[in-house]
């Protein structure tokens, strides 16, 4: 059972608070809140949650195309924190139809969204329909091209329905990658071996590659897609402001 939750007010109030305080707000307010763990730097959320509420919940999206290193991390985290990870699989028939019609690497030709939709978003949507709140490791600095802010708490418009309101927490929103890694080292948090091989952002194996020093992590994902395909914004800098 949840009390009234004013996301706009709380987003302002918690903007400058620590990830642990934001996470505590989520876990203490929502019994069904769950952490979305991708097998990358968001492992810090699992560590933080384990210190706040022993019965915290975690789920992961197994697209079927993850790196072996990521599967190994899931297992390591499960044992290390003694937590059951709800590993979600995509709909078998939908995957089979996609592969039958378009092959195993259609994303290199058609873009990643169709495959991500089936392997990631559909099981995510199904899972989120059972929760009142979810917690992500999204950070504002992960996608500098996106103008949208990443509030520390928000109503999840993408997955809320008229009958089901969903709250999304992004406790790491204002942390940098450097702060995440400082936490990992200081707290001896298990991490994905791929990070030692030059990977920063980690997704599915065919769609993720290591980046060079000073390359943005975004360049390690869907690099074959033009920047313009990833961006549908109206560029405000080109818009003459009306006056008067």
């Amino acid at each position, binding site marked *: 059972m949840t009390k009234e939750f004013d996301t706009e007010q709380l987003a302002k109030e918690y903007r400058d608070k620590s990830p642990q305080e934001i996470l505590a707000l989520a876990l203490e307010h929502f019994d069904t809140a769950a952490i979305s763990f991708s097998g990358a730097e968001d492992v810090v959320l699992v560590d933080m949650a384990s210190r706040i509420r022993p019965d915290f919940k975690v789920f992961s999206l197994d697209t079927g195309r993850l790196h072996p290193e990521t599967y190994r991390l899931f297992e390591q985290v499960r044992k290390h924190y003694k937590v059951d990870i709800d590993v979600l699989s995509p709909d078998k028939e939908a995957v089979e139809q996609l592969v039958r019609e378009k092959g195993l690497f259609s994303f290199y030709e058609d873009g990643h969204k169709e495959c991500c939709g089936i392997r990631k978003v559909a099981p995510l*949507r199904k899972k989120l329909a059972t929760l009142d709140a979810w917690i992500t490791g999204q950070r504002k600095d992960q996608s500098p091209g996106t103008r949208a802010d990443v509030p520390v708490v928000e109503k999840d418009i993408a997955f809320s329905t008229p009958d089901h309101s969903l709250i999304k927490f992004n406790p790491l929103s204002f942390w940098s990658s450097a702060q995440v890694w400082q936490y990992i080292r200081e707290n001896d948090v298990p991490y994905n071996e791929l990070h030692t091989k030059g990977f920063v952002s980690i997704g599915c194996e065919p769609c993720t590659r290591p980046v060079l020093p000073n390359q943005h992590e975004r360049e390690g994902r869907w690099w074959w897609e033009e920047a313009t395909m990833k961006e549908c914004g109206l560029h405000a800098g080109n818009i003459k402001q009306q006056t008067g």
Partner: protein
Amino acid sequence: MQISMVKKIKADGSPCRKCQEVGERLKSAGLEDRINRVIIADEREPDSEGMQLAVQYQIDRAPFFLVEEEGQEPRIYTVYMRFLKEVLQTEASEEEQLKDILDSSPDLDYI
């Protein structure tokens, strides 16, 4: 009811891929005729009608739909699925819904 679709022309003069795609989806669903007017937001021309509408309604993505009804405030839709459901009163397929979620939530790339 007057429905306008605002499409973007990019700074290099090429059409916005997403706008084209939404146009094709409307066409294949037999809903193209429900759009009364197409307005261009040309990034090379800040005075173009679409760019000015974007400023007026503080919209930062394309395409978007402007729905005008007599005696009511104009409504803006940037999420195609919502426009489809609330204005055209049509349910999209699951495949379209999933794609639209990804299109409108680029942050999901990092989940």
